[in-house]
């Protein structure tokens, strides 16, 4: 075997391992931290590692967007909200009963078992891997992503704007002061 190719694929594996470890550890820490600020910081780690994974898959534009939009803008928003609201932790909504917890653990264990089994048997399965051929020349560039966004995916692209509008309207609606309390109410 070609030594150079071997060491290249070796390096690829190592980079992949480091980045996915970053995603997983960051994700785990995000949901287990009690302090919201540190949870948000762990989320930054996940986003950054994810951007790295995108970059190794030759989706460079997506990697840059991931950093700009998620690790940048969205995270700043999160931190602002956490710091401004600064609420004491209230009682969790999760179900407390032993039976429901046991059922949850069992279900999660089953899914984990299935995934682990799949990964270990990956070689023998009829996985329809997208294509073993290398991606087309301009894959992942700004123009290629833009062309996809405004051609094949035009409808979802436009429909998402309604979703975002809805989120904005909802945010305003729910945080506005309740006016009716000091209107005609006498009781």
């Amino acid at each position, binding site marked *: 075997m070609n030594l150079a190719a071997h060491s290249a694929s070796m390096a690829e594996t190592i980079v992949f391992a480091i980045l996915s470890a970053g995603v997983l550890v960051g994700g785990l820490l995000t949901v287990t931290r009690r302090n919201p600020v540190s949870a948000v910081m762990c989320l930054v780690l996940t986003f950054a590692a994810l951007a790295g994974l995108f970059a190794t898959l030759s989706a460079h534009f997506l990697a840059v967007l991931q950093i700009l939009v998620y690790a940048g803008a969205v995270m700043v928003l999160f931190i602002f909200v956490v710091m401004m609201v600064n609420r004491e932790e209230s009682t969790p909504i999760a179900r407390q009963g032993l039976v429901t917890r046991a059922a949850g653990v069992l279900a999660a264990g089953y899914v984990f078992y299935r995934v682990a089994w799949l990964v270990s048997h990956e070689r023998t*399965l009829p996985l*329809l891997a997208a294509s073993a051929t290398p991606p087309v020349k301009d894959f992942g560039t700004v123009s290629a992503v833009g062309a996809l966004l405004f*051609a094949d995916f035009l409808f979802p692209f436009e429909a998402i704007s309604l979703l975002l509008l809805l989120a904005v309207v909802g945010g305003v609606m729910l945080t506005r002061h309740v006016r*009716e309390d000091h209107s*005609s109410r006498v009781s």
Partner: protein
Amino acid sequence: MTIAAAQIVALSPLLMITGVGCLALLLDTMAKGRAPALWLAQLGCVAALLAVANQWMGSGSSQPIWSGMLIVDRMALFLDGVLIIAALATLLVAAPFMREHEFEHGEHYALVLFATAGGMTVVHATHLLSLLIGIETMSLAAYLLVASWRRQPAGAEGALKYLLLGAFAAGFLVYGTALVYGTTGGEMSYAGIAARAARAADNPLFIMGAYFLLTGMLFKIAAVPFHMWAPDAYEGAPTPVTGLMASGIKVAAVGGLVRLLGSAFANPGLALGHAGWVRVLGGIAFATMTWGNLAALRQENVKRMLAYSSIAHAGYLMIGLVALGQKVDGAQPALLVYLAAYAATTLGVFTVVAWVGRRDDERLLIRDWAGMARTRPAVALAMTVLLLSLAGVPPTGGFFGKFYVFRAAMQSPDLAWLVVAAVLNSLVSVYYYLRIVVAMYFRDPVRPWQPFPSVGMAIVLFVTVVVVLALGVVPRPVVELAAGGLVTHW
């Protein structure tokens, strides 16, 4: 890609609802009072209905448009009609309800329209992305509508539960989409998935993706065991919104399931094989109707009882989905008839529930309804007809809906047990529906009911009762409409 005008015209109902929703938001900030936005929203619904009729006449194309994202076929148009009528009825009921309870705000009308637009996207979707966006638009509007009654703490609690569990369900949808995309070699359109399904059916990851998608969708129709949010959200929401959730949103989610299961996952190996969804869905259907009915028996709160009743109806509807997976002839039109009858009945029932309450006194307990027949015989009679339709007693639309679905299911010998269970369940449900009727007719009034005058509520109630009775006496026109809406196989 150039966008042909025909592609835009084909989407005219959806575009109208969305556009009028945006205009209603704008108008609300500029006009004095709430009335202009309300009138605009109602006019928009009527115009969109006309656009649907226009598309129906043109019979549309049965090919997916917008690069395979959506399809405008008869089934989608039929469900569009049901969704828009549900939105119109909700607007008519919501305006007097909000006035009476003094929490009027103009966004409410726009949110109802946006939820409808999301639902219409769901029933048109032939691509996992458009399905996902439609579901999320519909759900986000629904969370907001549930939370919109700010004085009501139950509303905030219900909305938060709905939002958190709904976000979780959205995660299932996205993860399922990713798994299906990966294991079919980059397919997200239903046609593409169906083409690759035969080969992918051996791949456990693909099966897992399909089940994740199914989980996300079943959450939206509140099937057991994904129903935990429903009673709280239904109870906490302003009553007209509860009506919309039980009718429009459920109709859209079931429509989306019909399309997803009927085309993308229709492959016999996938549906009936070793880990086939037909058997799983059959079990869930049984659990859903039984659990919903048994839990409804114990409720004293009318709204909560109707929430469990709506869970039970999701179970009956899933029998139709199971029959669809068994490739039974006529399963799909039967489902559409059921959906139309169920939506009309539910809208009527929640109109009465909304009408009964007064400011600071919602009168939601069954004993509050005592003696209603003496003070308001017409409303009590209407409520009785609607409750009988929910129970499936002839000659109502609810009876024919159930009859068609069960008859379709009976054609497959494997489903006989499910139909027997459903009939027994319907018998159980008669008990709790009749509790309300008994309270209205045979108990002495404790506090006489004085409804606030409302033309809108009276119109909705009258029309729903007429529709429910018409569906029971002369079901043929609607059955023919529904039969014109077979999923086109492409």
